[in-house]
């Protein structure tokens, strides 16, 4: 029987949670970390934690927000352990300021299949804070207030940084053409 080989995702409610939210977790991890294998690891670890700690979810925030909090922590841990192994000299400030004038122009792609690759390249060139803001705001289910809560700042600060993040992203996106 399937139930003996699939105990976790046959637990009442958990399969629904996985089906509804796993893509959000995986996508955030994928584009934030820029590595499919590490995104898989994060998704696995996050949902294992959710499975174990679901009864600790007190419903004070939306489930999605709680899930993202766990995901962001896992991504930060992944990033820290990766940086400890790979010393890089990326100047985040330089990337943060490289906003150029591309903010208002539309993003054009010749083929839809190149979209993912160009988005990843552009993301990789942004500061982690900008990357995270762009990815969280891209989730229709999150409000600016929830993004602010998740990133530990005010909604106004989110709006301001988001404006710069979008410009920086658009500049980098143009360069990938």
């Amino acid at each position, binding site marked *: 029987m399937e139930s003996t080989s699939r105990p976790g*995702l046959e637990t009442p409610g958990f399969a629904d949670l996985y089906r509804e939210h796993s893509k959000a977790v995986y996508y955030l991890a994928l584009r934030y970390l820029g590595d499919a294998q590490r995104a898989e690891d994060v998704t696995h670890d996050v949902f294992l934690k959710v499975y174990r700690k679901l009864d600790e979810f007190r419903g004070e925030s939306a489930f999605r927000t709680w899930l993202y909090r766990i995901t962001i922590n896992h991504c930060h841990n992944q990033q820290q352990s990766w940086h400890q192994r790979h010393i890089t000299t990326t100047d985040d400030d330089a990337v943060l300021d490289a906003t150029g004038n591309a903010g208002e122009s539309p993003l054009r792609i010749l083929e*839809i299949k190149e979209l993912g690759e160009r988005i990843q390249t552009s993301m990789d060139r942004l500061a982690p804070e900008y990357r995270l803001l762009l990815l969280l705001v*891209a989730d229709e289910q999150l409000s600016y207030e929830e993004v602010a809560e998740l990133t530990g700042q005010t909604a106004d600060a989110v709006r301001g940084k988001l404006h710069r993040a979008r410009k920086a992203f658009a500049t980098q996106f143009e360069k990938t053409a």
Partner: protein
Amino acid sequence: MKHRTKQTSHEQEQLSQAQSQSTAPREFTSVTEALREDRARVEVPPAVEQRLNESIAKLPKPPPQRPWWKRLMGD
């Protein structure tokens, strides 16, 4: 047979239309729109679900709960 041929050519037309749409140039009016399109195209690899099930199966099981009458009698 003739009808089937007509349907087939219609299907082919739809297919080539879909193919041309999937490879046509595309313009996004905002970064968020582009990211949402990208997210819609990303799928979680099935291997994650499999690994998750294996990990959950290895978790220690919680101790069985005593029947209510035993809990009531304090035994």
